[in-house]
């Protein structure tokens, strides 16, 4: 062993020791009560990373006389297991049913921890998880590392039929919307007035758009705003007692759509739009705004661009 090789060896040993002596990974999930029997586990307003282990999402549960209903299961098997432990600290009631609001991996990759129970989602969500679940699982492993160890995709087996479902004295209105994805489930507990909006609503954090249809999303937000609720649980960000998060999400989506469309209609190149033009302060201060905005350019600009360019005048003979 000469000095030339010494430094890399130290690094390698360091890497090994981090792996070997890692403490138990703890999401530190603490249920916050938002209404009688109703709890939310708040995630960080961040991107997936190795520190948060994917805990960037809000999950929730409702304790009823007939057992506990879980709404979304988090980003990993570990999260699902720790969520189940956290529920057991709040109530002796067993978990009896799980809902996934939509197909994004931070909302369903904890399903494995509830595999013994009925897990339900809208038909479009089930199909989407079946098609893309493995890809999502791989990408979260890359983004969150060891927190995802042992996570397997569990496709919900039960199709949600929109309408009212009564569980242990709670009237749960299951509503099928779309726009954030092709199928977005919102759950309004008419007994307590708590609305679980899933990712149709973001609060204090820039919305994500990888599967979005902005027009349909806006229509869904209008419908949500018309519901009568007293507590609003967004998919990401703080719980609210009014409809501010709905308005905030709407304002962002309108600003995003209009800016990208204007850029396309003015002949801007996609790369020229990567830095937004003068976003209003209310939008600029949303958590992870700059990064989400750039991702949204990739998701949404190509369609506006296609529409703009195809209106140009070209004469061509094709064989």
């Amino acid at each position, binding site marked *: 062993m000469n000095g030339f090789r010494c430094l890399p060896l130290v690094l390698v040993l360091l890497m090994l020791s981090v792996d070997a002596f890692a403490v138990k990974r703890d999401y530190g999930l603490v249920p916050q009560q938002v209404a009688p029997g109703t709890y939310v586990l708040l995630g960080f307003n961040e991107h997936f990373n190795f520190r948060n282990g994917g805990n960037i999402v809000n999950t929730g549960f409702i304790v009823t006389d007939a057992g506990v209903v879980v709404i979304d299961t988090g980003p990993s098997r570990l999260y699902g297991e720790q969520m189940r432990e956290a529920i057991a600290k709040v109530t002796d009631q067993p978990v009896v049913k799980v809902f996934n609001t939509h197909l994004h991996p931070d909302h369903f990759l904890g399903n494995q921890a509830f595999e013994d129970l009925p897990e339900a989602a809208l038909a479009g969500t089930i199909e989407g998880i079946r098609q893309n679940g493995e890809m999502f699982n791989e990408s979260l492993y890359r983004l969150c590392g060891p927190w995802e160890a042992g996570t397997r995709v569990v496709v919900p087996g039960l199709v949600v039929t929109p309408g009212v479902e009564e569980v242990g004295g709670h009237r749960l209105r299951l509503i099928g919307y779309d726009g954030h994805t092709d199928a977005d489930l919102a759950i309004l507990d008419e007994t307590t007035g708590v609305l679980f909006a899933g990712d149709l609503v973001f609060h204090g954090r820039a919305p994500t758009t990888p599967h979005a249809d902005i027009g349909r999303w806006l229509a869904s937000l209008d419908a949500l705003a018309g519901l009568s609720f007293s507590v609003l649980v967004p998919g990401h960000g703080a719980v609210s007692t009014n409809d501010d998060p709905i308005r905030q999400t709407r304002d962002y989506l309108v600003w995003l759509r209009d800016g990208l469309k204007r850029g396309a209609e003015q002949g801007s190149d996609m*790369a020229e739009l990567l830095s937004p033009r003068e976003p209003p302060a209310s939008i600029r201060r949303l958590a992870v705004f700059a990064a989400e905005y750039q991702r949204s350019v*990739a998701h949404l600009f190509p369609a506006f661009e296609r529409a*703009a360019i*195809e209106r140009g*005048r*070209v004469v061509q003979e*094709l064989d």
Partner: protein
Amino acid sequence: MRYLPDKPVAWFVLLVLLPGQSLLAAAGPEDPLGSFMWAEMHARLLRGEPVVFDDRVRVLMPAEAEDSMNVPVLVDATALADVERILVFAELNPIHKVLEMRPHRAAARIGFRLKVQQATPVRAAVLARDGTWHVGGSIVDAAGGGCTAPSIGSANPDWASRLGEVAARTWPREDGVRLRMRVMHPMDTGLVAGIPAFYIEELELRDAAGELATELWLYEPVAENPVLTLDLPGSGRFTVSGRDNNGNPVLAEVLGGEAGGGAR
């Protein structure tokens, strides 16, 4: 001990990647992006000719590729005088060369989209009349797979009927027009089993008087159905002509402006 490299080459990579270590500094200025492939790119693509790293050559790109099949890139060398050639390359892509441009009468600026296989520097080397390559660049992070995924078009049975189809629109700008143009083409890299390389190789634009406005050479890493942004002299009438590597022609007359909006 699975992390312990046992081959000399692995030790070499480890050492070269360590920040602050430059055991094998290449001749010429130090690469601001710190890429271990730079020296090879300099030798192979620029034949070891004189280079300077120059902030006036801008490569505008996202820090992270959301879609590795479609990474937007804008190269802008308009701050340099007398640009003769622009060569764009992505040095950690399996195919390095992306695009070449001889601006002629166009602004030394081009927008396009790129397929990336993994995180890579994307560089623009700009040959000015001083005989020096002025090099700018930035790094894009990517989950990868953009070069070894089949094009969407090649999986679509009717792509052949639209091969070479041009859509283009112009917008008036201060001293000419902004042209945005899309050419339908799979731009297959040849890195997917069973799908040979199939891509547009050459495009040129001539103005209404038949005078050459700009010349482009594309390579496999340009994204499927290339969308190009160019700033050109004139009022918006151009002939686009070129061909792909199988000899299929691209030929269209751009009339300028917008349908129903007048030619401007």
